C-alpha cells in the first residue's frame, strides 16, 4: 500500500466497454463499471473514500481497507469454487460407438463413413473396457455419452456399455448418467424402450423448420430427414418422456439469417430452450467452409439479435432459454463453476471430458479425434487396452494441454477483462495456428466469445429490470414469475 492510499488494491482485469466506460472484473468473478478517470485514480491509489464507487469496490473485493488476510482468504475461496472442475476430475466420457452414419450432413464434424463401413464400429469388448477406464476416474460423477457417426447403428456396443456401467456402479456408487447423441432416424420402439428403462437421455439435432433442416441434414441414400426426425421425436417423447429429449442446432450460412424461425420451430416442437451454436472448423464443416461458413462478425450480430428476440418472447409470457448465454451469465452472476468443458481454464479437454474412439484410442476431445482422422495423432493420450489410467490421464499429452490452456497466463488472454469467465480451446488453436497456445488476434474463437461477453455486459450495464429478470430466470432455472415474486 502506498503512503497516501487509504486502501490496498486487489488484482483485477479491465477493458474498455464503450466510449470512456470501462469494465473491471476480479479473480472472485465480481464486476464493476467505471470511467477511465476513476479507474486511473483507483490504480493510482488516490480514489477517495467518499467517491461513489468506493464502498461498492470494497464490497466486491477490488480494494481492501482492513483485514487484508481475511479478504484474501475469501477471494481465494471463491477462486477455488470457480475452479472446482479441476478437483472434480474427468466426469464426461464420450464413446464413439461407430464412425458409420446413415446421414451425410454437409457440416459433419467427424467426416462420418457410409453405413456399410463396419470396420469403424467399436467392438463390445472395447466398449466395456472404455467403461472400466471411465469408472477409474476419481470423480463421483460418470456421464457416458454415446457418439458417432450414428451410435444407434452399433446397438450391441451401446447396450453392452450400459450394462457394464450399471454393473460397475453397484459397487462404485457414482452418480451415473447416459446420453445418446442420435439423429433419431434409426430408432425403433424396442431401442427407445431400452433407453427409457436405463435412463438414457437423448440429444438430437434440429436446424430449424423443414427447408432449413433439410438443407444440410440429408440421408446418405438421398433426401431430407425432417419428416422422419419429427415422427421419431414424437415417438421418443412418448416412450422416454419429453424431458429426456433435447436438441442442438448448428448455424450455417443457410439458417444464419433465419435464427428467429429456428427459435420458433424449437418452441413449436416443445423444446424449452436452444443453444445457438456456430459452425466448428472440423471435418466436412472445414472442407465445405466456402459453402457453409460466414464471418464470425455475422454470427455474433445474428446471435445478439436472436438473444434479444428470445428475451422478448420470455417477457411476452413464453418461457424459453438460450443456453450459451445462460452458461456465461451463470459464470458472471454466480460464484459457481458451470462445468461447460468448451470454455474452461485450463481447458476441460482431458481433465473434465474425454473421448474413447471406436478402437479404444483415447483423446482429450472430439476435435482431437477428428484431427487423428485427418492424419494427425498429436493428441492421442493412449489406448484403453495398452495403457494404464495413469499413463492416459497423467501422460505428456494432457500435461501439455493443461500447461498451455491456462488463460491466466496466455498472451492476449492474461489481461483480457473477460478471462475470469472464459477458457481456452487448445485443439482448435492447434488446428488454426499450428500452436496449442494459439494466437488471440484473428482467432474466431476469441472473436465470438469476446463479442458475446461484450454484448451481455452492455445489457448488465443497462440493467433493464425486465431483461435482468429474464436472465435470472435462466440462471436459477425458475419461472419469470418466481423470480419477480422473490424480488418483491
Amino acid at each position, binding site marked *: 500500500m502506498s503512503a497516501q492510499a487509504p486502501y490496498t488494491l*486487489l488484482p483485477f482485469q479491465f477493458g474498455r466497454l464503450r466510449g470512456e466506460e470501462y469494465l473491471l472484473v476480479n479473480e472472485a468473478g465480481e464486476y464493476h463499471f467505471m470511467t477511465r478517470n476513476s479507474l486511473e485514480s483507483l490504480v493510482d491509489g488516490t480514489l477517495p473514500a467518499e467517491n461513489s464507487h468506493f464502498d461498492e469496490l470494497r464490497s466486491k473485493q477490488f480494494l481492501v481497507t482492513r483485514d487484508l488476510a481475511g479478504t484474501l482468504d475469501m477471494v481465494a475461496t471463491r*477462486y477455488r469454487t470457480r475452479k472446482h472442475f479441476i478437483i472434480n476430475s474427468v466426469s464426461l466420457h464420450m464413446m464413439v460407438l461407430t464412425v458409420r452414419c446413415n446421414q451425410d450432413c454437409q457440416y459433419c464434424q467427424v467426416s462420418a463413413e457410409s453405413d456399410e463401413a463396419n470396420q469403424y464400429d467399436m467392438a463390445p469388448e472395447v466398449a466395456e473396457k472404455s467403461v472400466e477406464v471411465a469408472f477409474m476416474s476419481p470423480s463421483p460423477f460418470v456421464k457416458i455419452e454415446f457418439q458417432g457417426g450414428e451410435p444407434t447403428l452399433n446397438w450391441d456396443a451401446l447396450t453392452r456399455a450400459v450394462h457394464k456401467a450399471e454393473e460397475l456402479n453397484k459397487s462404485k456408487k457414482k452418480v451415473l448418467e447416459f446420453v445418446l447423441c442420435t439423429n433419431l432416424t434409426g430408432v425403433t420402439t424396442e431401442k427407445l424402450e431400452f433407453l427409457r428403462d436405463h435412463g438414457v437421455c437423448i440429444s438430437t439435432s434440429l436446424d430449424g423448420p423443414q427447408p432449413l433442416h433439410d438443407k444440410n441434414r440429408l440421408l446418405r441414400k438421398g433426401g431430407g430427414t425432417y419428416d422422419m426426425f419429427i415422427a421419431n421425436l414424437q415417438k421418443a417423447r412418448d416412450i422416454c418422456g419429453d424431458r429426456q429429449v433435447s436438441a442442438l442446432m448448428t448455424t450455417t450460412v443457410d439458417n444464419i439469417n433465419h435464427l428467429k424461425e429456428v427459435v420458433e420451430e424449437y418452441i413449436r416442437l416443445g423444446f424449452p430452450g436452444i443453444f445457438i451454436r456456430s459452425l466448428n472448423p472440423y471435418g466436412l464443416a472445414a472442407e465445405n467452409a466456402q459453402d457453409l461458413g460466414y464471418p464470425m462478425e455475422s454470427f455474433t450480430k445474428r446471435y445478439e439479435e436472436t438473444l434479444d428476440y428470445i428475451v422478448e418472447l420470455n417477457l411476452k409470457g413464453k418461457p424459453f432459454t438460450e443456453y450459451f448465454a445462460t452458461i456465461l451469465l451463470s459464470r458472471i452472476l454466480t460464484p459457481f463453476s458451470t462445468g461447460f468443458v468448451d470454455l474452461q481454464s485450463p481447458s476441460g479437454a482431458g481433465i473434465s471430458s474425454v473421448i474413447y474412439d471406436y478402437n479404444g484410442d483415447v483423446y482429450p476431445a472430439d476435435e482431437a479425434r477428428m484431427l487423428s482422422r485427418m492424419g494427425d495423432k498429436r493428441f492421442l493420450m493412449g489406448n484403453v487396452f495398452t495403457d494404464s489410467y495413469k499413463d492416459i490421464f497423467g501422460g505428456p499429452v494432457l500435461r501439455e494441454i493443461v500447461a498451455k490452456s491456462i488463460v491466466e497466463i496466455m498472451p492476449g488472454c492474461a489481461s483480457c477483462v473477460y478471462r475470469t469467465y472464459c477458457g481456452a480451446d487448445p485443439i482448435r488453436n492447434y488446428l488454426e495456428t499450428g500452436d496449442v497456445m494459439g494466437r488471440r488476434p484473428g482467432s474466431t474463437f476469441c472473436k465470438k466469445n469476446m463479442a458475446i461477453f461484450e454484448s451481455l455486459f452492455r445489457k448488465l450495464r443497462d440493467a433493464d429490470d425486465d431483461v435482468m429478470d429474464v436472465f435470472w430466470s435462466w440462471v436459477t432455472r425458475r419461472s419469470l414469475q418466481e423470480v419477480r415474486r422473490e424480488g418483491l
Partner: protein
Amino acid sequence: MQSVLFAGNTATVLVDKALYDKEAAIAAAYRLNDRYSIELREDGPNYVAIFTAREGQHLDATVMEADMMSFFNDLLDEQLRIKLEQKSGKIRELIVQHAFSPIDLKKELES
C-alpha cells in the same frame, strides 16, 4: 512524444520511452499481429514500432489510421495494467496459491 508516419502499407510509430514501458508497447502491438508484421526496436528516447500490412491484408489508409489509433489507446491501457500489476501482482499470486494449497496469508503478507 508519440507520432505515426504512414508510407504505403507501412505505419511507423514512435513511442516515448519516458511514458511507456517496452512491455506496454509489445502488448499493444500484439493485438494487431493478425493484420500486420510488426518490428519493434529502440531508437534514442523512443521505441519504434513498424507495422507492415501482412500479405493478403488489403488495408486502406482509413483502416490503418484507425488501427494506429487503437494501438495508442491500447498502449494507455497496457501501461495502466503494468502499474496495476506492480501494485497487486504479489497478491494475485497469493490468492491462487492459497486457493489450491492453503498458506499462512498473514505471514506471507508480512514477508
